[in-house]
């Protein structure tokens, strides 16, 4: 063996090591990093979250103001959201986002959410037919024009509680076409309220007193309530509100409907229960919060209760006399993070699935 041959072999080994290391690094990034994006009015909220042994860490987050009015149906017309790709590409580059997977959270009122009960004895074909028929009862067009997903909420006895989620196929197709040239893979498409539910699940412990948790998505036009026993969704309730209603009116309607919801729940389950806490999320949450009845223990959803925020975003805690010369602790900024609940939840859902 000549010297040159040895050198070339060593070089090959080194190169293979590099490739392997790069592959491992990419694989790790792919598995442990995810990006969540949600739309709210004219804003795009985004977050890059990493999965670490100690829990989830928000590496990047922010809001992009656009000229597009999301949730109005523009998602179904490509020319109206042509700029979305540019906004997203700019966001990836400006923030140095390394995640390779994206979960896009759609506005809840673009989606049809139905909780239905299916017979446990259904065969696969019967179940398919049942889902299509049941969904068709709630939409005007044919069910074939929708992308339908179902998720089992609870099972037991002779029936299953199923959550049916359907969105118009053209919304999905348009968004897919718009984002297909993006540098990030659109891996999943989800719904705001379900992403907020994921954020709730990750950040909140079950209520010790055994009460129910009402997760209320408060936005102009439609109000969605998920009534949860711990993390299990027991009721899905949607009702329209005028897009121009003031927060007081929306709060009044929310109080009223929470009462109706509890009545329905008690009639159906036969269990005397109460609402232990109400978590408000989405655009109108801060303004509606003062108008929600104290009986329901309302609060804004806090997506950073357990999910940690990157050190870069933390601020020094205000000094007290007892702290002496010790370096100031780094704490969360006094910002309302509730608008980010959906994008945090969207990213977390990808990581949990992984």
């Amino acid at each position, binding site marked *: 063996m000549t010297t040159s041959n040895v050198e070339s072999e060593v070089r090959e080994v080194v190169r293979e090591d590099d490739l392997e290391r790069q592959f491992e690094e990419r694989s790790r990034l792919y598995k442990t990093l995810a990006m969540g994006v949600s739309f709210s009015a004219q804003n795009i909220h985004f977050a890059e979250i990493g999965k670490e042994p100690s829990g989830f860490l928000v590496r990047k987050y922010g809001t992009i103001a656009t000229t597009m009015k999301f949730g109005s149906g523009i998602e179904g017309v490509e020319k109206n959201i042509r700029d979305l790709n540019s906004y997203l590409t700019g966001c990836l580059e400006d923030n140095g986002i390394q995640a390779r997977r994206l979960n896009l959270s759609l506005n809840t009122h673009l989606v049809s959410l139905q909780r239905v009960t299916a017979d446990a004895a259904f065969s696969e074909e019967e179940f398919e037919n049942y*889902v299509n028929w049941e969904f068709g009862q709630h939409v005007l067009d044919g069910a074939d024009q929708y992308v339908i997903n179902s998720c089992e909420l609870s099972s037991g006895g002779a029936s299953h509680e199923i959550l049916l989620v359907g969105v118009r*196929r053209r919304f999905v197709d348009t968004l897919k076409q718009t984002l297909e040239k993006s540098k990030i893979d659109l891996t999943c498409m989800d719904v705001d309220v379900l992403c907020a539910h994921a954020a709730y699940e990750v950040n909140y412990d079950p209520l010790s007193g055994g009460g129910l948790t009402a997760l209320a998505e408060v936005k102009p036009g439609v109000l969605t309530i998920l009534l949860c026993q711990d993390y299990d969704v027991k009721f899905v309730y949607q009702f329209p509100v005028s897009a121009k209603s003031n927060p007081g009116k929306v709060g009044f309607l929310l109080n009223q409907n929470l009462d109706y919801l509890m009545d329905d729940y008690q009639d159906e389950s036969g269990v005397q229960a109460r609402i232990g806490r109400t978590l408000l999320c989405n655009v109108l949450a801060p303004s509606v919060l003062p108008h929600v009845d104290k009986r329901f223990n309302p609060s804004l959803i806090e997506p950073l209760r357990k999910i940690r925020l990157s050190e870069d975003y933390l601020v020094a805690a205000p000094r007290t006399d007892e702290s002496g010369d010790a370096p100031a602790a780094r704490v969360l900024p006094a910002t309302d993070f509730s608008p980010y609940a959906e994008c945090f939840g969207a990213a977390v859902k990808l990581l949990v699935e992984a």
Partner: protein
Amino acid sequence: MIRINLLNSQHAVAHTRDRTGETVLGSERTVSTEARKSSRMVWILTVGLILLIVGGIMLYTKRYEVVAYLEQYTGPLNILPVQEVALSAEEIEEQRRDKIRQLYMTNTYRIQGRDLFFLSKMDSLRGEARKPGYPRIASLSLEGNDFVLDVYARSIKEFAELTKAVVTVYTVEAVKPYDPKPSKAMAGYRYYRPVEGTLRIPSSAETDTSLVETRYASLDKARKMVTDLAVKNRLKAEEQDEMKLTKGVVVNKYRVGLKLEGASSDFFKFLKQLGALSINVEQAKCGIVYAEQRDARKPRPDVMEFDYNVLVPVRVTEARADSAARP
């Protein structure tokens, strides 16, 4: 955690096969069905448009015929300018004859109007006979411009009043008085005197604007119309077998004799309605013999002799063929 992914549908939707054999989604099928419908609609509209254009062109080229057809039902529409086309000599001659016929018929209607006026006036004078001291008109006859009344009176003086009444009728030109003669022909009346006279000739139509549109019916149809009209007016009509033809250049005249029985008042209604028909019938002779009513419970009908001419136009082509056939 509720796991959904709306990028893909978890549930199969109804698939079907399109014409090429590839499976298509229901929504795609909807789109293709709509496209097919639109395509069909475009075809229908295109064909409809072409038909409309062709119809429009045909209507434009045949506009004079169409308007002429419509004018049969609606009367003159005057929606098209006068068609100025070069007419053949034959057509010009036909137009000239048409004009002559129209003038002739217009004058005929005027004369018939005059006759009707005179006859009804005489009829009303006969009604006066019920008065004491007034003569009785037994019959009256009118042919052309000449008329004759057969008058019976109880005394010679009674004739003077009637003659005066006849002379003062507007349409009467002159009266020829005859000497009264003793007569026993009419019970209760001692004298008889005929009153002959002539009627004024009415002013003739000379301009196109005064022309009356005539409906030319065939000989048989015209005869049937006259007879039907008489029957309609409660007259017993009996057509004479003999029919006299007078050949002319512009029209051929067929003289038809009609014997009518019934009330004279119905006869006047018949004459009035016949005039209003404006058909190619010319009144030739009109005579009324009033029946003597002896018993009011059994009225006897008056007898009317009504001769008329049916004027059948002679076309240039017919006249030429006729002359060619002559040796």
